[in-house]
């Protein structure tokens, strides 16, 4: 009996060769918690605290303001147009890259990733230079009554630019891993190209697609830098939620600015929640880097 207790005492002293001491472990976990509390949780809480500074009804009232409602409507419209376009591009690009062998594939992937390393402001500038009234194409389009810059098409182009790689880079690794055998099998069984895509490929990539669409949507609704440059921020016409937040904030309408910000913050939280749920439930069908 005394032997058993003695043994228990000694085992507690033993530490696995691949672990840090409990003290070091606790210290590292503590630093992680404190660091994220200051850097991430505090700003998040600040958004809601500032929005509710004058109470819930004041916050809701500021959201019912026509400018705010117009901004929400515009942002939803932008997302509803640009996200499906981006998804269609992502699927096409992933199909082209993973189902065919061609020269310059690595270069093509680099080009698709390019928007991630370009400043959103520079992206907006590029679109203004391409389609602005001073440019060849832009001038002609304006003459036809179809302006791009300072109008909806420009905002959509800017949004597409900054979200460009999102869906494609989620799908490419997953489709490389899955190979071509299933599609080849479907084709030998007589399925048409479309049928193969809808019944074989799409079910295999749907969770990765949803993952990419989620991230793309969050960015599309929240883009600020590129949209600032191309939109002209005309109230009720081309002011999206983020640019309206800026205008309200600069007019010292703090509650109104933070109420609108809180709506976007809720969207961000929802995105993270869905994303984490996907990582837990469908890890095997996501790109390897998202599997925890």
């Amino acid at each position, binding site marked *: 009996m005394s032997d058993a207790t003695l043994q228990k005492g000694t085992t507690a002293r033993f530490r696995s*060769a*691949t672990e840090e001491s409990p003290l070091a472990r606790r210290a590292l*976990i503590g630093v*992680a918690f404190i*660091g*994220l509390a200051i*850097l*991430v949780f*505090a*700003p*998040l809480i*600040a*958004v809601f605290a*500032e929005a509710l500074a004058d109470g819930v009804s004041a916050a809701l009232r500021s959201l019912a303001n026509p400018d705010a409602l117009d901004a929400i409507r515009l942002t939803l419209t932008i997302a509803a147009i640009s996200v499906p*376009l981006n998804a269609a*591009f992502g699927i096409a*690009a992933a199909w*082209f890259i993973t*189902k065919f*062998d*061609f*020269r310059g594939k690595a270069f093509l992937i680099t*080009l*698709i990733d*390019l928007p*991630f*390393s*370009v*400043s959103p*402001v*520079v992206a907006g*500038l*590029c*679109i*203004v*230079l*391409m389609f602005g009234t001073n440019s060849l194409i832009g001038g002609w389009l304006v003459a036809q009554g179809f302006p791009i810059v300072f109008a909806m098409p420009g905002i959509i*182009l800017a949004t597409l*630019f900054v979200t460009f790689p999102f869906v494609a880079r989620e799908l490419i690794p997953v489709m490389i891993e899955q190979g*071509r055998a299933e599609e080849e099998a479907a084709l030998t069984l007589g399925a048409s190209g479309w049928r193969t895509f809808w019944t074989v490929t799409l079910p295999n990539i749907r969770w990765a697609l949803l993952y990419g669409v989620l*991230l793309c949507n969050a960015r599309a*609704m*929240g883009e*600020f*830098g590129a949209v*600032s*440059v191309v939109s002209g921020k005309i109230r009720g016409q081309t002011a999206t939620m983020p640019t309206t*937040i*800026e205008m309200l*904030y600069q007019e010292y309408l703090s509650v109104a600015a933070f109420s609108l910000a809180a709506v*976007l*913050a809720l969207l*961000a*939280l929802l*995105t*993270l929640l869905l*994303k*984490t749920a996907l990582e837990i439930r469908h890890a095997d069908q996501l790109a390897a*880097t998202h599997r*925890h």
Partner: protein
Amino acid sequence: MGRPLIHRSPMPGLGLSMGITLTMLSLVVLLPIGALLLKGANYGLEGIWETVNRERVWAALFLSFRLSLLAALFNLVFGVLLAWVLVRYRFAGRRILDAAIDLPFALPTAVAGIALTALYAPNGTFGHIAASIGWKIAYTQWGIFIALVFVGLPFVARTVQPVVEEIEREVEEASATLGASRLHTLRHVILPMLAPAALTGFALALARAVGEYGSVIFIAGNIPLVTEIAPLLIIIQLEEFNYDAAAAIGIAMLLISFAMLLAINLIQIWSRRRIGHV
């Protein structure tokens, strides 16, 4: 020579997928970037140099780059720590921390910008504490640093996490059986294994920070020569319809981005060559 441009394949949809890919890529990304480069070419190297070679522009470029570097360095250390803690330890709240790392990706930059300003302004929660020891954060370079740390936070942690997961226990055990202390193992075995991924994440965080606009402008104060970042200069030139100058600064920033993209690719090639797979 003999290698065909596109290999024959039984897969359907070559024309359609290639068509959509190349059309969208050209229309959305390549043509606009081309328009910027063309504008620069018309303006001429001398013109670009004249625009960029002004104290205010140099100050902004230097400020953006220097603070981005510092923020990325902070994220390098903190990101490796986060990746290690989240993969290796089991504790209450781990999932929440793991999800929270991605908040800077999901939260719109303008929202982050005004939230950080509210916190660090002299009358804000943290700004108030800092002010009591005479430390001004918002509307100084400290404020920009904090905003850039926020936007770059996920990069290193997310690139290092899968590498930590892949480390075989046996490698760490081997080090211990050879007499190495845990600290020696961490320094000489584990950190070198994480280094390539950490460097990639560092470069991504740096690239993101150099171009960042939304989260910075609210907290920066935007005082020329002191807290004015390079992207803001472009906006100012555009508001004055000074397209040539805006394009010149844009090209300077684009070149910095390309240089960093090249660096990321070189790091990856180097680490693949060196470490390979055992």
